[in-house]
């Protein structure tokens, strides 16, 4: 056989082998929809395993301290957000499966009590990156971070939507009043998370927290606040090329150098939080974000941190960026929340295939699972993505109740 024929034959064999194996790879890693999201409103096996791990961590102070220290060494925000996403996941799990309610509420109460204690004793800066630790540059006086106020309020509201805690009504009301006052003080109806740095992530969480509080109290503070926020956002905070909301901006609405364009780590959660106040805008933002930021490679899903038209540079939010496709682990994780919230099953399962392949899942004998490539906040975000739904539904139902009543009167 001639050399050229042999080389061609070699290449053909390798190409055929690749054509056989590579399409099979994502199929081997992709969980079924039932494994991921469960069936008949109950948790799926994957969520069960993640939940077991998270509960074990919060019921074992030593293990929890180790995990928290590992995260805080890199980013104190992860410690805080790990609490928020776990509380939201627990509230959803309790609403899905009432037999889990007592255990879920006990852990939620533990998390909220410890978080509020740390905020009181160490200050809200305990949960911020070092550049937020100083006193200079804050527009609000006294300085407050809507990152901390919004997520604490959201955690408390989630708990109260599962089962009432009368002793939290007053502190929640005080926080909501402060958040609204701070947001109203800005021409773009946004409060700062860091000195003169407003984030879409945090302000959308704050809007959701106010909406959930309305659902509990029968008030309607979220509607006018959201109306004004959305009007200002559409005028000032939309990225021209993509139509997506930008990630971060100053209190006066100027784009902030830290994230002047849209970012995956902000927009997927932003769209999900906006579901509580404006379903249409939320769905539009998710559709655009999915089109601009998500993709598949050989059947494996990923999400970019930035759209092609607004490239940014790797930072603590994006995490490491995979070259060529520009995939971001953090953006991909949060994209799962977006995909689940907007029932984009194909994207969710493709992202889960990547996680199964490269997240290095570790199953323990006690039935728990964690992903070695991630950390507690990553697992909590995934758990939330796999459980979300009932909490937002419950809030919408309660917010609708008095309005229906008003109409009938």
């Amino acid at each position: 056989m001639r050399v050229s024929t042999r080389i061609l034959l070699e290449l053909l064999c390798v190409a055929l082998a690749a054509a056989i194996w590579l399409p099979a790879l994502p199929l081997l890693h992709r969980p079924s929809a039932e494994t991921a999201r469960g069936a008949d409103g109950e948790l799926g096996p994957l969520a069960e395993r993640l939940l077991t791990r998270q509960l074990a961590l919060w019921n074992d102070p030593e293990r929890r301290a180790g995990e928290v220290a590992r995260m805080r060494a890199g980013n104190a925000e992860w410690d805080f957000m790990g609490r928020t996403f776990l509380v939201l996941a627990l509230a959803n799990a309790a609403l899905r499966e009432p037999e889990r309610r007592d255990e879920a509420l006990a852990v939620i109460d533990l998390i909220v009590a410890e978080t509020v204690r740390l905020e009181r004793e160490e200050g809200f800066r305990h949960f911020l990156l070092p550049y937020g630790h100083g006193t200079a540059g804050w527009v609000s006086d006294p300085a407050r971070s809507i990152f901390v106020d919004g997520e604490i309020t959201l955690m408390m509201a989630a708990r109260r939507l599962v089962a009432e805690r009368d002793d939290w009504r007053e502190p929640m009301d005080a926080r909501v009043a402060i958040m609204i006052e701070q947001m109203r003080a800005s021409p773009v109806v946004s409060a700062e998370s860091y000195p003169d740095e407003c984030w879409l992530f945090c302000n959308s969480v704050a809007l959701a927290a106010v909406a959930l509080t309305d659902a509990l109290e029968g008030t309607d503070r979220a509607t006018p606040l959201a109306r004004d926020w959305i009007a200002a956002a559409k005028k000032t905070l939309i990225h021209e090329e993509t139509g997506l909301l930008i990630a971060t901006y100053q209190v006066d609405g100027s784009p902030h150098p830290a994230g002047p364009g849209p970012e995956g780590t902000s927009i997927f959660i932003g769209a999900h939080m906006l579901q509580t106040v404006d379903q249409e805008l939320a769905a539009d933002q998710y559709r655009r974000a999915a089109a601009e930021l998500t993709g598949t490679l050989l059947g494996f899903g990923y999400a970019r941190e930035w759209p092609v038209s607004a490239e940014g540079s790797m930072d603590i939010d994006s995490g490491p960026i995979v070259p060529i496709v520009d995939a971001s682990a953090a953006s991909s994780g949060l994209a799962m929340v977006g995909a689940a919230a907007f029932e984009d099953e194909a994207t969710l399962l493709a992202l889960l295939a990547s996680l199964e392949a490269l997240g290095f899942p570790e199953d323990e004998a006690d039935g728990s699972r964690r992903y070695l490539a991630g950390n507690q906040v990553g697992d909590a975000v995934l758990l939330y993505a796999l459980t979300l739904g009932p909490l937002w539904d419950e809030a919408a139902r309660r917010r609708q109740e008095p309005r229906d009543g008003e109409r009938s009167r």
Partner: protein
Amino acid sequence: MKALDRVGRFHLLLAATLAITWIGLRIVGGREQVSALSGTSPATAGAQILGLFYVLIHVATVGLAPILVIAAGLRAIVARWASPPDETAGNDPVARTPEESAP
């Protein structure tokens, strides 16, 4: 193995080397040190390097090794189909059996 020529055996050897390296790295704890993928640094720089090396070998083993094995199998099938057995043995001394090599 008799049906494979040098290239086919090289494919299998490379696949086996990847798999053995992957198992070795797993035994020394490389899999537990992969958290750098999410930006969560392992305890030491050495652990971080071990984890990243494990990720590279893992991707190569899972993505490439099976392709090499399948390609080796395909080569063997094509070689048998394309050439009469005695002609193949005559052309490729590596694939010749001891009996065929005897005078």
